[in-house]
């Protein structure tokens, strides 16, 4: 087995110090052991009733003892073995949960539910910390064994009796739709923020005259999302009832020309006068993009007020607009920082060799700023996936729907049904974009 274990350095360490506590692993094991003393599951007569807490020693079977042993081993064994141990701990942990839920629910009514309690969460945290400890020493094993154990547990149905999973089964179809909606809401917002934010960032970086744009973005970021919705609602409701689609489109076309004319006179005046039109364009683009990407049908109705085209004071239109405004700051800021970070010597060399300003931008400045730009998009994406939760408050749906319903109905498992996928999505998108950024840097040789 040693011959195939990855990382020759890790192998060497194994031989030298097989019994040697590692601080991060020690922390994980400590957390795991503390968790074993706390209640893990909560048995409730119904999904909203008060519960009775039970610890791992409260149900028969010796999985608890095995987990205890695994934690001790995990703390002291070094090298790639730790990854294997972690996978085993995860497996035992899941089996323990499955056993507990099955035991608690035997002889109970159909309406009875089992929820996760403190000990279970703490042990989950311990496994998470343990993953990092294992990853450092034998990343192959850790990356392989943890997902494998997780897949095995799901295959065995270890979590099937747990509260959030029971909720998911009864809401399955709605869950799929709301997940899709959540993705299309945050996706359209991020796409729009990139579409608007990148040129804006380029503009801000081009001259100190445009520094105020960053100030405005920062100010937008400080407005609480609920307040932004509250401000948008009456305004957008008014506009969507009175403004007809063709009038809106005509206004936008005229606006473009008016902007160019006004720009020649005074830049500040042009921006100030045309800002409402810009927001109108953004809200229309947002609503339509969301319909294109998401489960809701796209409606474009001419000779009718905008609300017939799906742009209203509540729903997707204000949600995407608000999310876009929030996502703008990280995008603009990183484009700006990225372009500003291009060394002056490199730009001077490019100019001196006869690059036109456009060539300098596309061949030198943009490629060099790209990794940082991607960082901004990554930040914007994980931020947006999180705050899209509040979109449910104004009837735009998304996974926030379950959180809202759970809070209203006092059903914590329902809240988890919304919250866990949101966390998972944010982490997934974040690591995917992080990986892409790394790939880009590697490809570009910086």
């Amino acid at each position, binding site marked *: 087995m040693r011959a195939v274990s990855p990382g020759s350095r890790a192998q060497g360490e194994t031989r030298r110090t097989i019994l040697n506590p590692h601080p991060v692993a020690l922390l994980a094991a400590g957390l795991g052991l503390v968790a074993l003393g706390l209640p893990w599951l909560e048995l409730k007569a119904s999904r909203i009733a008060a519960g009775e807490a039970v610890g791992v020693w409260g149900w028969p079977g010796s999985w608890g003892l095995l987990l205890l042993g695994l934690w001790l081993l995990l703390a002291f064994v070094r090298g790639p073995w730790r990854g294997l141990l972690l996978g085993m701990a995860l497996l035992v942990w899941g089996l323990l949960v499955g056993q507990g839920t099955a035991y608690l629910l035997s002889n109970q009514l159909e309406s009875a539910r089992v929820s996760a309690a403190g000990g279970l969460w703490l042990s989950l945290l311990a496994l998470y910390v343990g993953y990092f400890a294992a990853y450092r020493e034998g990343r192959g094993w850790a990356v392989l064994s943890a997902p494998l154990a997780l897949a095995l547990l799901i295959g065995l149905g270890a979590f099937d009796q747990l509260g959030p999973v029971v909720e998911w089964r009864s809401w399955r179809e709605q869950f799929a739709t709301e997940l899709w909606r959540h993705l299309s809401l945050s996706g359209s917002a991020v796409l729009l923020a990139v579409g608007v934010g990148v040129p804006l960032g380029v503009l801000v970086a081009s001259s100190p005259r445009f520094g105020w744009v960053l100030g405005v973005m920062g100010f937008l970021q400080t407005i609480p999302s609920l307040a932004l919705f509250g401000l948008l609602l009456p305004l957008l409701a008014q506009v969507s009832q009175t403004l007809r689609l063709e009038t809106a489109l005509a206004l936008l076309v005229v606006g473009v020309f008016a902007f160019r004319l006004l720009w020649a006179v005074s830049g500040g005046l042009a921006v100030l006068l045309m800002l409402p039109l810009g927001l109108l364009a953004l809200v229309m683009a947002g609503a339509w993009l969301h319909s294109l990407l998401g489960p809701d049908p796209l409606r474009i109705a001419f000779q009718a007020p905008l609300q017939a085209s799906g742009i209203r004071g509540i729903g997707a239109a204000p949600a995407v607009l608000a999310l876009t405004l929030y996502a703008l700051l990280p995008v603009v800021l990183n484009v700006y920082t990225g372009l500003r970070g291009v060394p002056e010597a490199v730009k*001077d060399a490019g100019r*001196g060799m006869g690059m036109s300003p456009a060539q300098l931008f596309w061949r030198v400045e943009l490629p060099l700023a790209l990794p940082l730009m991607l960082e901004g998009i990554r930040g914007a994406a994980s931020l947006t996936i999180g705050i899209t939760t509040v979109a449910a408050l104004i009837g735009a749906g998304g996974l926030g729907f379950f959180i809202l319903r759970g809070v209203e109905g006092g059903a914590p498992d329902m809240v988890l049904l919304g919250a866990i996928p949101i966390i998972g999505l944010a982490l997934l998108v974040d690591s995917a974009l992080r990986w892409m950024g790394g790939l880009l840097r590697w490809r570009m*040789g910086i």
Partner: protein
Amino acid sequence: MIRFENVVKRYGDFEALGGVSLEVAQGQLVTLLGPSGCGKTTLLRTVNRLIEPTEGTVFVGNRDVRGLDGVELRRGMGYVIQSIGLFPHMSVLENVMVVPRLLGWKKEKREARAKEMLALVGLEPQTFAGRYPRELSGGQAQRVGLARALAADPPVLLLDEPFGAVDPPTRERLQDEFLKLQSELRKTVLFVTHDLEEAVKISDRICLMNGGRVEQYDPPEVLLRRPKTPFVQSFLGPSRTLLRLSRIPLGGLIEPLDSHRPSVSIPHSASAREAFSTLLASGLRTLGVSDATGRLVGLVRLETLLAAVSEEEA
């Protein structure tokens, strides 16, 4: 080839160039020398129109540069700056191909040319073509910068302290190689430096500047022998005699070997200055001179060197 006529550059109240007139003949290597802030870089940058003069005219090949498109003009001139400015996201080969690519050369042609240039500056193309700038030493990066400037075979090279950022031994080696290259290529070179020794070593003519004006424009030997102004005198300092020795080739001072065999020798290609230093260091009065194979071919006496200096002085 390059002619400055009364070039003035003002930034608000500050006068960076106070009326510079200068002519650089084709195939000559002229250094713009002076303390920092003397306007030498500003003057250099008026040639490729990175800086537009407030007054006066710059001619390149008898054409007023204002009448030429700035971008086109720059593509026709090699340009190297102190921090080199290699593009970090491009490989060495791609860096060297930048200007040929801007000029729309075919891929095979520009690749062949870039490899040829790498070989010319002493970098093995097979080893270095695929490397990225961060993987190069300072000296290697400077060579790539030079290869990049030479890639499109421009008649004019503008070099702004190109060897300023490398350690002294590497700098000397780069200077030697550059001189060798220049003796083959015969480009018209404007070379900005603040290093007097470098200027004396490589220049056909030195333009010593101060406060945005030309103090003296002469070949190094003349500049060192007859400083025209007190500023030039103080800038050259007390070591100017020694520096003059560095412009004297050893060849003319060698005497045939006699029965006395000197214990210390230097190569035939060394300068009079190196011979003088070696004599001082060894405490001897005569020094052997050896040819490329290390065989003693003659000797040089301390008296001869001293006479050579005083002869020049007179």
